[in-house]
């Protein structure tokens, strides 16, 4: 096969620069997390660390399709979204290390990345809790006559929760510009979808609220990008919410403590070997002569350095100042005691 237009994939309108950026971001997320896992083993990172490895195409495809003004709220598996948004890997790593220079000053850790300047209103750790918040962001956008769409990222497990259904009903009832993007990675912790959900395909749940919905291959970054673009256009044009289900898979355990008794090694291997999103894009880029091996290797090296630098930065950063412990409980002053 050869490419029809130089520097492009057949049937894909994206320029080479964008394709390479998608590649770079996916590699960055993967390397960042592999190194985070190592740092966890070294005791530099503690608590819950939910890795996104295997699912990178969803975050990258979705974020690259969004407008800078769009709102974003995610669940706790949020590193991929922060990095795809272009947040500084050093500040992301510092947050995992619980340092003052972290994205949220060491107050949130892995599950609570946020950056208000990017309208990334945070990672939330109560399953499904972010969904009504996303609907509220959509309400604000509509109320203020903005063109922003609120994008909500959540897992298959969240769709079985009441908050999910309340949020979908509100969003549809009031025609709010909300994109519900469900990452169906086949499991909620150790419970496979078929043991938790009466409906195996998440997108079918949207029909109860008359929300248009579709399923997309979450291992194909371009497919995710294109589907997200279409979905955002729908929301932005005043048609109300949209539901997108990305079929994906996490290679690592749910968090670092996962004994992985609920699935076979073969199953994981199968996805790694045949459905890896990075390998897939890489092969596409090479097969269609969009990029050379050297170009990709240069990106890989740059990522490697950026991640090493992130660890260095996190390591050398100071702990949060104990004097700030009680700061930011209230925004307005309190004088009584």
């Amino acid at each position, binding site marked *: 096969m050869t490419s029809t237009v130089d520097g492009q994939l057949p049937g894909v309108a994206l320029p080479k620069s964008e394709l390479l950026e998608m590649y770079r971001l996916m590699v960055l997320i993967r390397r960042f997390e592999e190194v985070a896992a190592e740092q966890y083993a070294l005791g530099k990172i503690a608590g819950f660390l939910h890795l996104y490895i295997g699912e990178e195409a969803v975050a990258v495809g979705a974020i690259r399709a969004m407008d800078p003004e769009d*709102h974003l*709220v995610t669940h706790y598996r949020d590193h991929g979204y922060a990095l795809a948004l272009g947040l500084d890997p050093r500040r992301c790593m510092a947050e995992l290390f619980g340092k003052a220079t972290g*994205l*949220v*000053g060491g*107050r*949130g850790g892995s599950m*609570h990345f*946020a*950056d*208000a300047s990017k309208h990334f*209103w*945070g990672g*939330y750790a*109560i399953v499904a*809790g972010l*969904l*009504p*918040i*996303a*609907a*509220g*962001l*959509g*309400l*604000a*956008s509509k*109320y*203020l006559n903005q063109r922003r769409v*609120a994008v909500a990222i959540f897992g298959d497990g969240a769709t079985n929760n*009441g*908050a999910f259904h*309340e*949020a979908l*009903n*509100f969003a549809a*009832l*009031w025609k709010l510009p909300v994109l519900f993007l469900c990452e169906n990675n086949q499991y909620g912790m150790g419970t496979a979808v078929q043991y938790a959900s009466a409906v195996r395909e998440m997108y079918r749940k949207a029909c109860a609220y008359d929300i248009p919905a579709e399923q997309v291959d979450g291992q194909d970054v371009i497919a995710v990008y294109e589907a997200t673009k279409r979905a955002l256009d729908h929301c932005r044009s005043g048609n109300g919410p949209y539901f997108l289900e990305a079929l994906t898979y996490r290679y690592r355990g749910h968090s670092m403590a996962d004994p992985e008794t609920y699935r076979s090694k073969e199953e994981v291997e199968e996805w790694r070997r045949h459905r890896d999103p990075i390998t897939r894009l890489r092969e596409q880029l090479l097969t269609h002569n969009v990029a050379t091996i050297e170009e990709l290797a240069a990106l890989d090296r740059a990522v490697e350095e950026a991640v090493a630098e992130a660890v260095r930065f996190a390591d050398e950063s100071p702990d949060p100042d104990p004097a700030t412990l009680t*700061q*930011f*409980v*209230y*925004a*307005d002053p*309190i*004088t*009584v*005691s």
Partner: protein
Amino acid sequence: MAREITYRDALREALREEMYRDERVFLMGEDIGAYGGSYAVTRGFLQEFGPERVRDTPIAELGIVGLGVGAAIGGLRPVVELMTINFSLLAMDQIVNHLAKIYYMFNGQFTAPVVVRTVEGFGQLAATHSQFFENYFAYVPGLRVVAPAVPKDAKGFLKAAVRGNDPVIFIEHSLIYRNRGEVPDGEDFVLPLEGAEVRREGQDVTIVSWLRGYYLALGAAEELARAGIECEVIDLRVLRPLDVETIVRSVQKTNRLVIVEEGWKSFGVGAEIAAAVQERALDYLDAPILRVASVEVPMPYARNLERLVVPNKDRVIEAVREVLYQRLPAPLTR
């Protein structure tokens, strides 16, 4: 200048004025529009402000508060209503795990200034519709919890809550909506969301309460005054942040404290007040701190039984006499 208006009208004025002042202020809740509000606080608002700003919602308490959180982050000033405090339990995750955490957990990057209005009370509504849960909220750092007893506070607090940058749980009481009181004129009458107030001075016993309990305390104080006992009555007004200082100052004078609360006694607001006061003023106390609270049963429907559960004026008087060691000894035989 001031006018005498009802507690309900004080709330209505506050909401109307803030909605005219700031277009970002909107209301959202069950039956607040077409129905006019379960307690008629928002009657006529739908006609006046339209359905964008007075939003009838599905019966979905978690969603109501959660949409409020998102709307606030997105730049609006939501005043959400939970029909009664009993239903707030369904919204607890959004209130405790989200609303209260946003500012701190994300390192002060943004706030979620949501006002959650809700109401407690009783009136032969049985076990699930007659509960007092202010302690559930007052427990949580990050929330401000106000419980105004008088129209002036109702108005000043609600306006301040709408204008402020913190989440506020605004607790009303169904049995005091018709109470009247003076409210200062002027659209910029706002009150700081903190501080207890000594509303009646006395040197013999301090009684602390809030919402309807405050009126019981006042009634008891008036009756006791006729017997020569002068009570100092403190209206707590705000549960978080708790103004311990004002109570301690009073106890340093009276050396005796009675707390009147409508909730169950165990693990209640009164327990917190008693603990905080003894930490700072143990040496000033001449008697144990007493709590007048609800009997610890699910609320029964029957009128006579319900009356036995909730505090009343006589029980307050009895407690005051007890801390003064004036209680008649119990008869030895039946």
